[in-house]
Every structure is written in structure tokens, then in C-alpha cells.
């Protein structure tokens, strides 16, 4: 009997060791997977229990976590909700996060790997753990000017520092109140979200960088002109035929200039005049002349079809894949299947303004840990060099002429050389227009590149978009 009891005792020991092993596997080895599982609400509660880092603009808080007396110890609060909604995004209770809140969640919640030492330090010194703070590149005055200038118009404004790529303003209208989505009552949040989602004006979409994208219309002529000049195929005084009506190849469609007449009185028109007066027919001819490959190459150098994170994902602007001859001509004045984000057009102006060097757009200036050490400093990065210094000098001059005595006259600022280009894109028969302005100021030492888009206008880019852009540029120059 002794032998048997010995063996049973060994079995008992093995059983207890097995339990110790299985619990060790869970608590020591599988712990990361288990904590990261989306169904683990403890992780969610924890992400609320630690104070989430604030988001700042120019040293002022625009989003912060305020202590509340509930299971989730902090409530995310947005101080200028409508103004910054499309920048901050929203932070919900397990219903997904967007904008900076979504993209920099690890830093804000303090769970990013490079914050490990800071967290450890906080634990050892008895401070409560806190997420990193995120300072944005946005300039509050410019953002406010942009929002005020855009008013009730649906559309977007993007302002960049052409020398660094820092985003100075990013406004998308209509906006929403992210506080509604940050509440702790999930039912209310879902109701508010569904209401926003079903709103036909799509307030949740950041029109500056995402959404269905816009036809660029005449502002795309900047890309075409840049391609024509920089490739050496044409010069600014190169001429093309100047008819009042042009039959598209292999098609019944005819195209006309916006003024319904010829582009100036002459038999032939120069590239420079065609850009200044913004004529469609000459650009259709230029597009056909330089060909689809050159055009696409330059579009891609400016950022079309390229992935970009600012850190939010920017929807890539589109130059059509295989345009036929007619589509190529239409695309050369920004119609057909060319579709862009306002940020993309601001990037085109910024590259021209910055001597042909395109800086990577960025929204985050610094990420600072709880101990105030900088985790991620902002370092300007070159995105590409789409055109040469010479080409940029020529284009700058043409764009300044466009504002001074061309189609973009409403972009003028007294005493400052402003470069600009307007656009009035058609969206099909009976559909409202897309009104554009993109440009930079001052021409000799560019401080700002801007793109403005206004939806559903029944007017012209110069009448509606240019004055908005002017106010945004003034806000930068007055700083």
C-alpha cells in the first residue's frame, strides 16, 4: 500500500505542478496577447484610468482628459471642438478613434514602447502614469482665420509652411463636436455617431485629406505647366493653336474655354498666357503634346498616387491609369478622372514656392513624455524634388502674374507678391461646381502655401475661393 500511496502522491504533485505551469503560462507568457485582445475590456478601462496626454496647439490645450467620478476615471474633453474636430479626431469608448487621437493613441495613452522608461520612472517615483502630450504644428490664428473665412461653405482649407511642410491650418466644413463621441455612455455615443453618419453633408469626413476627393479643374494646370516646362518639351513662350472650340479626338464632345471665346485675340497663344488667363483648350493641346507618361511622372513627383501619413492617412490623389487621347486632353485641365485632396494641391503650390523642393507635410510638432522629455521631435523631411529651381522660378513668376493681372485677381494682398491659381471644376451635367484657389505668399520668401476648396458653389474660384485663401495668407503674414 505504501508504494501505491507514494505513486498517488507523485500524481498529486504533478497535478499541482501542472496547474502552476498553466497559470504561469497565462500570467507570464501569454499576458501580452491577452492584454492586447480587443475583447479585453480591462485594457480599455485601463486606457481610461491613466490620464491621457493632452493635444496642444501653440502651447494651448485643445484636447485633455479631465478627472470624473466613474469607472473610467477621465473624460476626454475638447475645448474648441468644432474648430479642431478634423485634426484631433475623436476618442471613444471602444468604438474606434480617429485623427491624432487614433493615430497617436499609443503615445497619448502612454503605452508606446519608447515611453516604457518614463512609465517605469513614474511608478518608482509614485506619480500616477500619464500619457505623452502631443503638440501640433497648427497655428491657432491661421486655423481660426481659415475657419472664419470658409464660414458656412462646405469645403476645406489647408495651409502649409512651404519650407518645412508644417501644416499651419487644416479646416474641413462641416465639422462636428467630438465631445459628443467621447462620452462614457456608449448608447448615446452610438446614437450621436449614427446621426453624424447619416447626415448627407458628411460632417465626419475630413475633406482636406480624405473623402471622395475633388476634381481639381484649372488648378491642375499648374502640374501640367510644371511638367511641360521642367521636361524641357515646352517653354513659357511656346505657343499652341487658339481655337474657340476643340473637337476631342475619336469623340463627339467639344470643349470650350471658360470665357466661351478664344484665349486672347491671337491665332496662337503662349503657355504663359494660357496659364494666366486659365484657358482649357490650350492646356488640352499642351497635355496632348507632352503625353500621358510625362504628365503622370510629374503628377507622381508632386505626390499623386503616393502614400502619405501626416500622421493620419491621406487619401492618394489620382491621375487616371490609362487615359485615351480625349481623356488625356480633358485631364490636362483637371477634368476627366483626375481627383485630388486639398492637401495635394497645397503641396503643389508649396513645392513651386520652395524652389522645387516638396517638404513632407506634417501635423505633429513634438511628442513629449510625462517627464517633459521629447520622444519625437519634428524634423522637416523632403518628400520629393518634383521640379528644378529654374522651373519653379518661372512658375512662381507666372503664378504671381496670375494674381496681379490674371484670373486669380482676388488673391491680391497689398504690398505682398502673391502667387496663385484658381479653378472652377465641373462635376457633370447639372451638378454644382468645385471652386478652387491654391497659391503662396510672399513670392520672394514664401511663408505659406494654401489650398482652398469650396463645394457646391455656382460661381467662380476667383470669386469665392480666392478671398478665403487671401485671408488665410494674411493671417500667416500678420503673425
Amino acid at each position, binding site marked *: *500500500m505504501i508504494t501505491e*500511496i507514494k505513486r498517488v502522491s507523485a500524481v*498529486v504533485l504533478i497535478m499541482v505542478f501542472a*496547474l502552476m505551469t498553466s*497559470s504561469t503560462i*497565462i500570467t507570464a507568457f501569454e499576458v501580452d496577447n491577452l492584454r492586447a485582445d480587443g*475583447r479585453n475590456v480591462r485594457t480599455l*478601462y485601463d486606457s481610461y484610468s491613466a490620464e491621457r496626454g493632452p493635444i496642444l496647439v501653440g502651447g494651448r490645450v485643445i484636447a485633455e482628459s479631465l478627472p470624473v467620478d466613474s469607472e473610467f476615471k477621465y473624460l476626454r474633453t475638447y475645448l474648441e471642438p468644432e474648430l479642431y474636430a478634423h485634426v484631433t479626431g475623436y476618442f471613444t469608448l471602444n468604438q474606434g478613434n480617429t485623427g491624432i487621437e487614433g493615430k497617436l493613441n499609443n503615445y497619448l495613452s502612454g503605452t508606446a514602447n519608447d515611453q516604457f522608461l518614463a512609465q517605469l520612472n513614474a511608478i518608482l517615483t509614485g506619480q500616477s502614469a500619464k500619457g505623452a502630450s502631443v503638440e501640433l504644428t497648427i497655428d491657432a490664428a491661421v486655423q481660426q482665420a481659415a475657419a472664419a473665412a470658409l464660414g458656412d461653405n462646405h469645403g476645406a482649407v489647408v495651409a502649409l509652411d512651404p519650407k518645412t511642410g508644417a501644416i499651419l491650418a487644416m479646416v474641413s466644413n462641416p465639422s462636428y463636436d467630438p465631445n459628443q463621441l467621447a462620452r462614457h455612455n456608449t448608447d448615446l455615443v452610438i446614437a450621436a455617431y449614427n446621426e453624424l453618419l447619416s447626415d448627407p453633408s458628411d460632417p465626419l469626413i475630413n475633406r482636406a485629406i480624405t473623402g471622395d476627393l475633388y476634381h481639381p479643374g484649372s488648378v491642375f494646370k499648374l502640374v501640367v505647366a510644371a511638367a511641360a516646362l521642367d521636361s524641357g518639351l515646352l517653354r513659357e513662350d511656346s505657343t499652341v493653336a487658339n481655337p474657340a472650340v476643340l473637337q476631342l479626338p475619336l469623340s463627339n464632345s467639344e470643349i470650350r474655354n471658360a470665357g466661351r471665346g478664344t484665349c486672347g485675340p491671337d491665332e496662337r497663344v503662349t503657355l504663359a498666357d494660357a496659364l494666366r488667363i486659365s484657358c482649357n483648350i490650350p492646356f488640352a493641346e499642351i497635355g496632348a503634346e507632352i503625353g500621358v507618361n510625362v504628365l503622370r511622372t510629374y503628377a507622381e513627383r508632386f505626390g499623386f498616387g503616393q502614400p502619405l501619413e501626416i500622421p493620419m492617412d491621406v487619401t492618394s490623389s489620382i491621375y487616371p491609369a490609362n487615359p485615351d487621347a480625349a481623356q488625356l486632353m480633358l485631364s490636362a485641365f483637371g477634368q476627366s478622372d483626375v481627383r485630388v485632396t486639398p492637401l495635394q494641391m497645397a503641396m503643389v503650390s508649396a513645392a513651386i514656392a520652395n524652389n522645387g523642393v516638396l517638404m513632407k507635410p506634417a501635423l505633429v510638432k513634438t511628442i513629449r513624455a510625462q517627464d517633459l522629455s521629447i520622444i519625437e521631435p519634428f524634423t522637416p523631411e523632403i518628400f520629393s524634388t518634383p521640379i528644378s529651381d529654374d522651373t519653379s522660378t518661372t512658375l512662381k513668376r507666372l503664378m504671381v502674374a496670375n494674381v496681379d493681372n490674371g484670373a486669380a485677381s482676388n488673391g491680391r494682398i497689398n504690398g505682398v507678391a502673391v502667387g496663385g491659381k484658381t479653378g472652377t471644376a465641373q462635376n457633370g451635367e447639372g451638378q454644382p461646381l468645385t471652386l478652387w484657389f491654391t497659391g503662396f505668399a510672399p513670392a520672394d520668401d514664401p511663408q505659406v502655401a494654401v489650398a482652398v476648396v469650396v463645394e457646391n458653389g455656382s460661381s467662380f474660384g476667383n470669386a469665392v475661393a480666392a478671398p478665403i485663401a487671401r485671408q488665410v495668407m494674411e493671417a500667416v503674414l500678420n503673425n
Partner: protein
Amino acid sequence: MTEPTLVAVNDRPALTKELRLRLRTPAKQRNRELILLLFAFAINLSALTLVELGALGEATGELFGYSVALCALVLVAHVCLRLTAPEADPLILPIATALNGLGIAAIYRIDIYNGAVGWDAASVRQIAWTAIAITIAMAVLVVIRNHRVLLRFRYVVGFTGLALLLLPLIPGIGYAQFGAQLWIRVGPLSFQPGELAKIALAVFFAGYLVEHRDSLTIVGRKVLGMRFPRARDLGPILVAWAAAMAVLIFQRDLGTALLYFGLFLVMLYVATGRVSWVIMGLALFAGGAVLAAQLFSHVAGRFTAWLDAFNQEIYDAIGGSYQLVQGLFGLAQGGLVGTGWGQGRPYLVPLAQSDYVVASLGEELGLAGLFAILALYLLFVARGMRIGFEGTDDFGRLLAVGLSFVVVLQVFIVVGGVTRLIPLTGLTTPFLAAGGSSLVANWIIAALLLRLSDTIRTGPHVVVGP
């Protein structure tokens, strides 16, 4: 200190004299026990206070009075041991007390979250049940002065055990909870008679096997290098297997079936020394379980929830892996050292006070706490096994091994289920989990082990069998 009361109650001079003698004789084991009990009390009372500090931020002392009363009752049990079993093992009572107290603290922690007070609070009911259980345990110690009396009543006890096991199947009083038909209800009281049945069955198995082991030891044919029993001796194991299968099928409870059958197999092995019995038994049980899994969805569900727990479909299914996975999340949250008493969120897991009390403790006390609890169980069972080694009669030895093994097997089935070592089944964790039947049964086991351990040192050395 208790002497005057006892003298007042018992005025027979002979008994008084004996009591005086007992109390004055230095009882080394009991003094050790007293010191260990003070440790257990300190652990239990500080656990309750820490729960309040962690969950509420202040010590409200809600249960303090009850708990001190419970400590006093344990001291009464200690005195009872001094009088009725002075040489009993000194570790069993302190371990049972400590585990019981940790359980109350874990249950109280959930009550605080639920805002349950008074009789609505599971912790208050648990304290009351503990008092009842300890009182019954003392009664067992007083009534059963010699465990061999149980040998005489083995068949009566065996039939009682069988009746208890089948009671929940009787319409009218039996009812199902969480899919398992294991409860009976009489008036406002509900009880799980199966918990008591395991003691009765252990007594019966010990008695029956000591009597019949000679014939069960005789081997028949040799198959694959192992000697198997004769066909005519297969009766008992087949009856036990059929009973286990009946529990599995009619009461829909894999854990209980495994517990009873495992108990029977181990006792059969210890009595006969034949590994072939164990192999046959395991094969029979595995075959039955596989068959049951194919025939009954509730059994199959347990297996799929175990093997593919993180599959979203199984996670969402009714009777799926939701509880298992949430329990794992809780344990992961606890990590190595736990969140601390009252500072985790064990209430997120269903049945955090009963079936999942181990996950609750794991979350707040961490792996370190779980190891300590497992070590307490190991120590408890080791004390029981010691009786098996040192016992003077085979019935007592077999009974001690059976009773200790059934405790550790139950811990294995529950904790193994929670930690995904084996499929999850609904059993209570001995001494820890909320539930009166379980407490009463396990305190009776403790009382029997105490009685048996006392016999080793004081009883006459009767040798039965080889």
C-alpha cells in the same frame, strides 16, 4: 479557560477529571495549531481590510464583527480538538481556516462592487455557512470518536451517497443551474447534495475495497505485457463507470463525473496495487466522454470552447468560451503580483464568486497569490497522504488517501478549467468558492482527516491485511 464552563455542564466527576487531565497535559500539536491559527486569522482579517481599502478607499469594517466571531468559532473548534483529538494534525485546521477566509475576502470584494449588503451579500451568507460547516465538523469530531465505526456502516453510507447523488434528478425538488442538474431546493434553501455524496462514496469505497481487494487483486490474462483483472471481477468498476456516465448524461456535468470516477479509480489502485485497473478505468471514461461528446451538444460544447476558445463564434455562443476567455483576461491582468486586493476588476467575469473565485484571486493576488493558494492545497493534501503512510489500519489509510485526493482532484478540475489546462466544468473550489454545500462537505473532510490523524498517534495499532 474553558474549564469552568465544561465543569458546569458536565458534573460527572470521572469525565471532569478526564477533561482536566486532557487540558493540563501539554498538547504539542495543539499548541502548534494555535500559533498557526493566529497567522490564519491575521491573514483573513487583513485581507478583508485590504479589500475595503482597495475597493472603497477606506476601511469600513462591514464584515469585521462577523469575521472576528468566525475566528472565535475556529478557536472553539481548536478547543474541541484539544478535548476530542489532541494528537490530530496541527496544519489541517489552520489551512482550512486560511483558505476559507481568503474565499470570504474574494467574495466580499465582488459584493462591494455589486453593492450587496446583509443577506443579499454572498459574503455574509458564506460566513454563516462557514459557521454552520465548522459546527458540523465539530459534531463529526465529537460523534465519531473512532473512524472504524464508519467501516461498519459502509453500505448504509454508500447507499446514502448514491441517494444524494441522484436526489437532484427527482422532479419537484431537483433543479438545474447553469445547465447542470446538481441542485435540490427545499423551501428557501438550495443545496448541492453531490458535494456530500463524495464523502459518503469515499467511505463506501474504502470499506468495500478493504473487504474485497483480495479478489480484485487477482490477475487474469496478460495483454501487452500487463496483467489485467479477471472478467468476473469487473463488476465494481463497471458499476462506478455507469454511475459516472449517468451523472455526465443526466446531470450534464463532466466535472462531477470525473471527480467521482477519479476518486474511485485512485482508491481502487491504492487498495489493489494494480495499474491495469487505472488504465482500464481511464480508457472507459475517455471512451464514454468521447461518446457523450458526440451524442450530447452540452458535452461537445465544453470541448470546443476549450480547444478553440478565442474563436469569435465560440466566444459569442451561448455556453461558449466567453467566461473562460474573460477569466484568462483577468488572470493576465493580474500578472505576476496581481493588482492588489480590491483594485482589479474580477467582477467582469461571470460567477466570479463561485466557479471563478480562483480567477478573481488570480487577478488581484497575481501568480504569486495563486502559487500560495496552490501550495496551501498541496500542504493540506500532503497531511492527508501522511495519514495514508503512517496509518494503523487499512480502512483508515484508504479513506484518508481518498478524501485528500478528492480535494486535490477537485482543485485540479476547477483551476485546470480556469487556466485552460482541461475543459472547463462547473465545480466549486474547496473552501474558497461561495456555496454552502461545498463548505459543509469540505469541513467534514477536514474533520475526518483530523480524526484519522489523531488515531495514528493515539489509537491501538490494528493491522488488517498485509
